[in-house]
C-alpha cells in the first residue's frame, strides 16, 4: 500500500516535471522562432530558416507571444511575424479552437505594444465579432495607432454631423484632438469654421511657417542639384546663417530673406511669394527648438527636387521633378537634440514648360510616427520672423 502510494507520488512528480519541462521547452521554441524572425535582414538572406520558424509557430498556438514580438521589430520582421500570426489563426480555426478573446483584448488595450500588432489583434477579433468596434474604438482617440485614431475620429465626426450646430462644436473639437489624417482634419476644420470657431491647422499638424530663404542659384539643366552652393557648405560646417552676408546667386547678389506662409497646410509657395525662376534653386532654413533629445519624423511635400540637412547633416535627398505633390509625401526619420536644431532645405526647380510643371513650393512639418504634431518649445511665444525661428 505504502509502495503503491510512493509509486503514485513518484509518477505524479515525473508527470509534473515532464509537463513543466515540455511546456518550458515549447515556450523556448516559440521564443527562439520569434527571435529568429526578428533577426531577419533585408536582401533575402535566411528566408529558409524563417520559413521553418513560421512553420514551427503555426502549430504553437502562441498568438500573444507572436504579437508581443512585433514591438521594436523591423518592418521586414513585422511582415514575417504577421504571416506567422495569420498561420496560427488559420490553424486554430481549422482545429475549431476559440480565440483567446480576453487576452487579445488585454493586448489591444496595452498602448506600449506595437500599434500594428494591436490593430492586427483587433481586426482578428472584429472578424469574429463586429460588436467589438463599438466597445473599443471610442477610447482610441489618442491612440498611438493612426488606424485606431482614424476610426475613433470617424465615429465622432458621424456623431457631430447628426447633432445641432451648438452641440456639434465640442464633438468636432474632440474629434480634432485626435485627428492625424488630412481628409478628416479638413472635414472637421470646415465644420468648425462654419460654426464660427477658429482653427489653427498649421499648429495642429506642426507645419513650420517661418523660414529664411535665399536664392535663386543656378539649376539650369538640373545641374545645380549636385552643386554645393555656399549656404549648403556653410550649413555642413555647422555655422549659423548670417542675414547680412551676400552671396553670388544666379541673377546677382542674394542674401537671406524672411518668408512666412499663412497657408493652412504650411505651403511656402516660392513661385508666388518670390518668383518662379526657371532652372533655379533656393535654400530655406529654419530653427526648431526641442526641449530634449528626441526622434521625430520630418514630413515634406514638394513637387521639386530637394535635399534636407538637419544640424548640418544631410538626412535625405531626392531628384524628382513634377511627379505630383502632397502633404506627407516624404517621411524622413530625424534625431533632434535638446536646444536649437537647424533645418536647411534645398528646393530645385527645373525648366519644364508644361502647365503642370510650374509649381515651386514645399510644405514641411515635424511630427511623431502617428502623424501627430511635435511642437517646438515655447509655441505660444511670438513668432520671430527675422530669424526664421519656429517657436
Amino acid at each position, binding site marked *: 500500500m505504502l509502495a503503491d502510494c510512493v509509486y503514485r507520488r513518484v509518477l505524479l512528480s515525473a508527470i509534473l516535471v515532464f509537463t513543466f519541462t515540455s511546456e518550458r521547452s515549447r515556450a523556448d521554441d516559440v521564443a527562439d522562432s520569434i527571435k529568429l524572425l526578428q533577426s531577419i535582414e533585408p536582401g*533575402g538572406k535566411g528566408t529558409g530558416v524563417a520559413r521553418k520558424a513560421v512553420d514551427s509557430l503555426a502549430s504553437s498556438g502562441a498568438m500573444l507571444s507572436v504579437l508581443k514580438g512585433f514591438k521594436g521589430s523591423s*518592418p*521586414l520582421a513585422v511582415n*514575417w511575424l504577421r*504571416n506567422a500570426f495569420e498561420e496560427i489563426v488559420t490553424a486554430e480555426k481549422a482545429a475549431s479552437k476559440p480565440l483567446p478573446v480576453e487576452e487579445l483584448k488585454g493586448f489591444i488595450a496595452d498602448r506600449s505594444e506595437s500599434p*500594428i500588432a494591436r490593430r492586427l489583434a483587433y481586426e482578428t477579433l472584429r472578424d469574429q465579432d463586429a460588436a467589438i468596434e463599438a466597445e473599443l474604438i471610442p477610447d482610441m482617440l489618442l491612440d498611438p495607432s493612426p*488606424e485606431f485614431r482614424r476610426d475613433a475620429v470617424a465615429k465622432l465626426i458621424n456623431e457631430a454631423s447628426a447633432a445641432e450646430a451648438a452641440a456639434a462644436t465640442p464633438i468636432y473639437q474632440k474629434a480634432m484632438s485626435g485627428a492625424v489624417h488630412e481628409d478628416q482634419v479638413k472635414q472637421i476644420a470646415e465644420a468648425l469654421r462654419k460654426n464660427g470657431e477658429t482653427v489653427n491647422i498649421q499648429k495642429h499638424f506642426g507645419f513650420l511657417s517661418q523660414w529664411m530663404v535665399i536664392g535663386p542659384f543656378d539649376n539650369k539643366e538640373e545641374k545645380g542639384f549636385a552643386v554645393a552652393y555656399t549656404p549648403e557648405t556653410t550649413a555642413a560646417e555647422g555655422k549659423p546663417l548670417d542675414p547680412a552676408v551676400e552671396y553670388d546667386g544666379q541673377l546677382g547678389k542674394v542674401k537671406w530673406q524672411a518668408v512666412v506662409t499663412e497657408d493652412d497646410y504650411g505651403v511656402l509657395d516660392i513661385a508666388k511669394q518670390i518668383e518662379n525662376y526657371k532652372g533655379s534653386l533656393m535654400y530655406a532654413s529654419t530653427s526648431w527648438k526641442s526641449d530634449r533629445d528626441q526622434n521625430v519624423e520630418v514630413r515634406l511635400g514638394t513637387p521639386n527636387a530637394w535635399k534636407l540637412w538637419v544640424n548640418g547633416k544631410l538626412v535625405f535627398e531626392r531628384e*524628382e521633378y513634377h511627379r*505630383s505633390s502632397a502633404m506627407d509625401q516624404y517621411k524622413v526619420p530625424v534625431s533632434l537634440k535638446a536646444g536649437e536644431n537647424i533645418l536647411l532645405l534645398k528646393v530645385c526647380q527645373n525648366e519644364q514648360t508644361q502647365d503642370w510643371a510650374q509649381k515651386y513650393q514645399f510644405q514641411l512639418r515635424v511630427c511623431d510616427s502617428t502623424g501627430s504634431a511635435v511642437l517646438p518649445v515655447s509655441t505660444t511665444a511670438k513668432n520671430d520672423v527675422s530669424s526664421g525661428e519656429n517657436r
Partner: protein
Amino acid sequence: MKRIILGTSVLAALAACDSSFGADWRQFRGNAANSVAVGESLPTELSGETIAWKTPLPGRGLSGPIIVGDKVFVSSSSGYGQDRLHVVCVNADSGEQVWQRQFDATGRTMTHDKMCNATPTMASDGERVYAFFSSNDLICLDMQGKLQWFRGLGSEFPNASNSLGMSSSPVVIGSTVVVQVESDAEAFACGVDTVSGETKWQIERPRAANWTSPSVLPATNDQPALALLQSSKGLTAVDPETGKIVWNFEKGASTIPSATVSDGAIVIPSNGLTAIRPSGEKFEELWNSAGLSPATPSPVVIDGMAYVMNNAGVLSAGNTSTGERVWQLRLKGSFSSTPIAAGGYIYAFNESGTAFVVKPEADKGVVISELDLAETILCSPGASNGGLYVRSDQHLIKLANPK
C-alpha cells in the same frame, strides 16, 4: 525500344505539363506576356447570365487577376495611406475566398489618385505566387498563403520610387523573378531567385519614370528565353539568369504600354509601333508605323494583326507584315486595361466598367456584345478554362458561359 518508350514518356510528361501551364494565366498579359489566351473559348454574348460570380475584394487595385489551376490570385491595397497589402486567393469555380494574407508596406505608398499601391499584376511559376506593389514590396507566397520570402525593395532602395506610383509587373522566367524598378531618382532592374528570394543580379537602368513591364522573348533552339526591359531609351534584351545584356534597341520607346512578342517578332510601342525580329545577339527592324500608337493599353498581336488602343478609345488594327493600319473601331470610353485575344475575339474593358467583345474581320472590327459591369475597371483581365476574370476596385468578377 527502351529509349523510344522513355522519349515518349518524357514527351507525354512535357505535353501534360505544357497543357496544364497553357490553361493557366500566370502573369500580366498571360503566360507569354502577349495577352493571347491560347485555346480558350470565352463567352461572346456577354450578359448578366455570363457573370459566373462576383467576389468582394479588400481594398483597391489596378492589378489584374492571375489564374493557376483552380485558384485565382489578386492583390489589393487598403488603408488611409494604401500601406496595407493584401494577397487574395479565390476558388476559380465557386468564387469563394480560399485564403487572404496581409502585409505592411515597407516602401513609399504615395500614388496618383487613379492608381494605388496594388497596381502591378502578380506572377506565378505554378508553385509559388509573387505579388509586387507600387511600394516595391515583392512578396512570395506558396499556394497555401505561407510566406516564402519578402523583399522590401522600397526600403532597400528608398529613392527608387515615383510619387505618381509604380506599376511595372514582374515576370517569371525559369527560376528568376524579373522586376523593373525605374524612377527619376533611382532606377534598376533585378532578377530575384524564385526559391530563396535572393538577388541573382541587378543592373542599372535609365534614370527616368517608367511604368512598363518586362516582356518575355521565348527560348529558341540557339537562345534561352530573354527578359525584355523597356524604357524611354528603347528595349533591352537581358539574360534572366545573369542580367547580361544581349542586345539593345535604342530608338526610344513609350514608358506606359509594354512590348509584345508574337511568332518570334517583337512589337514595341516606339515612335508609334515598331516591329523587330531578334536573332541571337542581333535584331532586324521590320517596320515602323506612326499610325498605330498605343496609349495606356499594350499592343495585342495575333493572327498577323496588331491591335492598339489610343487615348480616345479607338481600337486600331494593323498588319504585322507591313505595319499598315487596316481598320479602326471606336469603342466607348477611356481604356487603361490591355485587351486580351481569345478564340478569334478581342475582349476589352473600359475604365467605367463596360466589357466589349470585338470580332476582328479582314477590313473592320465589329462589336459583338457589350456588358456594363458598372464598376471602375483599370486592370488587364485574365483568362483560363473558359473563364474571363477581371477585377474592379470592389470585386473580382468571373465571366463564363452558363453551365
